[in-house]
């Protein structure tokens, strides 16, 4: 870990602690966790269901805070992240560390106390995976950082399901795999048009280490198993046709956009429309896939 920017002597604003939790990323995590909870068979008391989602959000926020605590030096070198509380000098690193550790402990203990131990255990694994495996171990060492680290973002649906059922079944595992396989094309599309940012910070993203051609191809190739896993619940009889047909449409569109990225030769980040389109669509795709799954489950319940 290199030296981080020096913080001002003023105490941080509460808004900076809020920013430390990456609220926008949390939205997606909360949504997938909520969908996992809603599609699970069985019943959970609304207060306990709310608590489970709150704990997922707190855990995600805590992991984001610890990630920024560790990566303050990297963040200060990238335009996209330079205005975060630590690199901008609005907060000292110790406050971020205490906040992250405290929030992690709170989220796990509350989940164990209010919901069940399996959900608390998976939440613990997801926080540790994001902080230790992705942030500390992989991110600065290998261009496969996103591939393996993607598992961290795939846990919420599993946690939501476990909160209701107290066990793990085939459907949430497929959802876990879908988010896991979705992460590489999503982040590699982003890394193609912010390549210079990652290069300046020395992050060995695929586009920095292997070049844009290999990155494009791999983003395209990863989209295939992702699509297969996303559509699989229908032929396996785990969902109804609403999900099945929607999943086919959503994934065919994803593959078409990924193909345009895969076969593009554009080298100027400012002109990378296909990459921006895939990145934007990939976010919509995840929201839509999980949303349709919930509609399907409620419809055929």
């Amino acid at each position, binding site marked *: 870990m290199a030296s981080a920017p020096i913080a001002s002597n*003023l*105490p*941080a*604003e*509460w808004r900076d602690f809020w920013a430390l939790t990456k609220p926008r990323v949390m939205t997606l995590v909360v949504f997938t966790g909520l969908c996992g909870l809603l599609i699970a068979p069985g019943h959970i*008391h*609304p*207060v*306990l269901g709310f*608590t489970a989602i*709150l704990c997922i959000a707190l855990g995600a926020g805590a992991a984001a805070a610890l990630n920024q605590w560790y990566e303050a030096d990297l963040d200060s070198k990238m335009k996209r992240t330079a205005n975060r509380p630590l690199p901008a000098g609005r907060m000292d690193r110790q406050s971020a560390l205490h906040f992250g550790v405290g929030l992690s402990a709170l989220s796990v203990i509350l989940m164990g*106390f*209010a919901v069940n131990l399996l959900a608390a255990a998976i939440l613990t694994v997801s926080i540790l995976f994001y902080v230790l495996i992705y942030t500390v171990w992989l991110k600065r060492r290998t261009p496969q950082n996103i591939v393996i680290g993607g598992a961290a973002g795939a846990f919420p649906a599993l946690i939501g399901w476990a909160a209701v059922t107290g066990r793990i079944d085939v459907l949430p595992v497929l959802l876990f795999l879908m988010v896991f396989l979705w992460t590489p094309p999503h982040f590699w599309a982003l890394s193609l048009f912010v390549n210079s940012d990652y290069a300046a910070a020395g992050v060995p993203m695929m586009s920095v280490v292997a070049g844009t051609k290999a990155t494009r191809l791999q983003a395209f190739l990863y989209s295939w198993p992702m699509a297969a896993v996303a559509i699989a619940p229908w032929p396996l009889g785990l969902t109804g046709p609403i999900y099945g047909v929607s999943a086919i449409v959503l994934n065919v569109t994803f593959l078409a956009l990924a193909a345009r990225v895969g076969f593009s030769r554009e080298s100027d980040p400012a002109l990378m429309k296909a990459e921006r389109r895939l990145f934007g669509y990939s976010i919509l795709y995840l929201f839509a896939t999980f949303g349709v799954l919930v509609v399907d489950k409620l419809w055929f319940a």
Partner: protein
Amino acid sequence: MALDPNTETEIRRRQKSRAIVTALLLGAFVVLVYAISIAKMVK
């Protein structure tokens, strides 16, 4: 070393806003734990 008045005012303002947010969150946490306890008893 004495702080200049502007800095001191800014520090107090930040401390106050943090204290208010912390108090609100603690209050919400107490209500949540109470609600969880009731939900567990009902279950």
